[in-house]
């Protein structure tokens, strides 16, 4: 299949998905579907952030959920105290970007290796989890916002229009905004990759030594893309906080593992892949959850997710979706050739490599 046909199909698919998400679903008006859709969008934004910094920046962040959860908490706390959640949204994204900047400074200026980077980022997330998990008591109240320990903040406020703090948006509007936030983040990532900055980031992933010798301060570029990734993950956290509410599970090991799985399944080095991987795995989890009892407990989500991750890493080089797509393309190419042979006899020359 040629590249142009492939990208044309890609645009058609994106347009169809956008039509379905923004026209069909709201028209049907099923609130449960829309709330679920908002949750999916929040998680997909988180997946995008890792797709950007790992797939393109080569930065192995095993704790991407740190920014997701932190922004959620900042949003909830600021929203409860300020009343105006539009301001809280900006504060939350700024806070996760700032946190990424501080953490990134220590990691990139220390020139930590990939292995250390993965471990440190995951550890940061797990410590955040432990910290918020123990904030149950009265003393853990920031302004009017009790942190709530393991239970989180069930009273996480809903986004309000700018200047109208007393009119929280309806679930339909939250859903539309969530989908638009996902689309915005996707386009933002594509834009970042296409800029000179983004090209340099990819070059640094390919060969940091060469990039340095050409005059790029690799630490700055890595920090830059890490901060953008942190801000995007933060926006995902705010979306999630609006559709559920914030709790320490946003930081926990399972959440961090899931993001990795989405990206691996969807294919490292692409943007749409991890989003699709996220949707596919979330749908799989939901389906497994609905099977309760039928398969006598063997559908434990952790077991299934773990098996998927290990099998993908051990047996596939490319990720599940790219492998499936490539196999499908080969199949179509073979079928097309068969048809051509039947119609026109043997081809004179192979004009296209398989």
């Amino acid at each position, binding site marked *: 299949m040629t590249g142009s046909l492939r990208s044309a199909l890609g645009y058609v698919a994106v347009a169809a998905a956008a039509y379905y998400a923004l026209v069909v679903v709201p028209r049907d008006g099923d609130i449960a579907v829309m709330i679920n859709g908002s949750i999916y969008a929040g998680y997909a934004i988180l997946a995008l952030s890792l797709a950007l910094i790992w797939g393109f920046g080569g930065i192995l962040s095993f704790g991407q959920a740190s920014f997701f959860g932190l922004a959620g908490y900042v949003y909830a706390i600021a929203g409860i105290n300020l009343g105006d959640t539009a301001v809280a949204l900006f504060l939350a994204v700024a806070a996760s970007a700032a946190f990424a900047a501080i953490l990134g400074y220590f990691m990139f200026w220390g020139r930590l290796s990939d292995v250390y980077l993965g*471990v440190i980022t995951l550890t940061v997330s797990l410590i955040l989890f*432990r*910290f918020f998990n123990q904030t149950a008591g009265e003393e853990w109240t920031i302004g009017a916002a009790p942190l709530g320990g393991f239970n989180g903040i069930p009273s996480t406020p809903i986004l309000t229009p700018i200047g109208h703090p007393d009119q929280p948006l309806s679930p339909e509007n939250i859903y539309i905004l969530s989908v638009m936030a996902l689309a915005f983040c996707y386009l933002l990532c594509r834009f970042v990759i296409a800029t000179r900055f983004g090209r340099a980031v990819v070059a640094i992933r390919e060969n940091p030594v060469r990039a340095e010798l050409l005059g790029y301060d690799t630490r700055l570029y890595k920090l830059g893309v890490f901060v953008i990734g942190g801000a995007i993950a933060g926006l995902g956290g705010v979306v999630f906080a609006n559709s559920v509410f914030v709790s320490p599970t946003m930081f926990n090991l399972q959440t961090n593992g899931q993001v*990795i799985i989405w990206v691996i399944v969807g294919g490292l080095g692409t943007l749409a892949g991890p989003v699709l991987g996220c949707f596919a795995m979330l749908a799989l989890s939901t389906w497994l959850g609905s099977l309760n009892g039928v398969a006598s407990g063997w559908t434990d989500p952790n*077991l299934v997710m773990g098996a*998927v991750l290990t099998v993908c890493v*051990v047996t596939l080089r490319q990720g599940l979706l790219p492998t499936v797509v490539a196999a499908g393309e080969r199949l179509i190419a073979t079928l097309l050739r068969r048809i051509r042979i039947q119609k026109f006899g043997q081809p004179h020359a192979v004009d296209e490599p398989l």
Partner: protein
Amino acid sequence: MDYALIVLLQVIATVANLAMISAGLAVIFGMMRIINMAHGEFLMVGGYTALVSHQAGLNLWVAIFLVAPIVVGLIGAVVERLVIRRLYGRMIDTMLATWGVSLALVGLITIAFGNTVAGISPPLGSVEIGAYAIGCYELFVGGVTAILFLAGWLVLARTQLGLIARAAMQNREMAAALGVDPAKVYATTFVLGAAISGLAGALIAPITGVVPSIGATYIAKAFITVISGGTSILAGTLSAAGLLGAVNSMFSFLMTPVLGEVALLACAVVLLRLLPQGITGRYFRRAL
């Protein structure tokens, strides 16, 4: 005076605890340069093994010192055969694949024993120092840790096996030059690391209890101890456990245990900014 003594004992117990939960991870990291993301679950399974076999009527000490290491060592052998061996030289992929193993083990244990906390009360009672008390069992764990590290040092420094291991630690090719199959060294290392984790998990189970997700509470501390220490198994783990354990218990005393962990992490991050290769990447480079 009593207070100072009890603080000192607490610090020692914290350091020993850190060293103990990090030991198996350190063995695998020092020899193979990979981080076993399923480490926390190896500890967790060790704890469950000891608990379940004790509840089935087995002597507690046999369960801790024999059954748990053997069971977890066998699990390590299976993981090595099915996963690690296929990914030699691909460090990041190895981490990802063991992360999958970690999730799968949490799932399996949840299916087998349910998502509830189980535990046994620590044996040996407690000792009173003035107005304060400290569990004898915690001191006992400290003693076992000391013996484990001493034994590790003896093996590394004095035996043929230790020579091979030291060669592998310094340089992958060197072990091959000694006429040892590196694949065999790695397989043995992984199984040994798993067995040590099983023992550690069993040892601390009476203090902390067990629950399928408990691995996550260990790995944060174990990870930063090992990478702060660097690749020298004994010196790295001990020096990092000493430093981070002291910081942890100081802040735990002054504030809360969780803030102690936050301080421990902050200390490790700053440490790695200054010494990116860990403590033994800079100091005691020749140490074991």
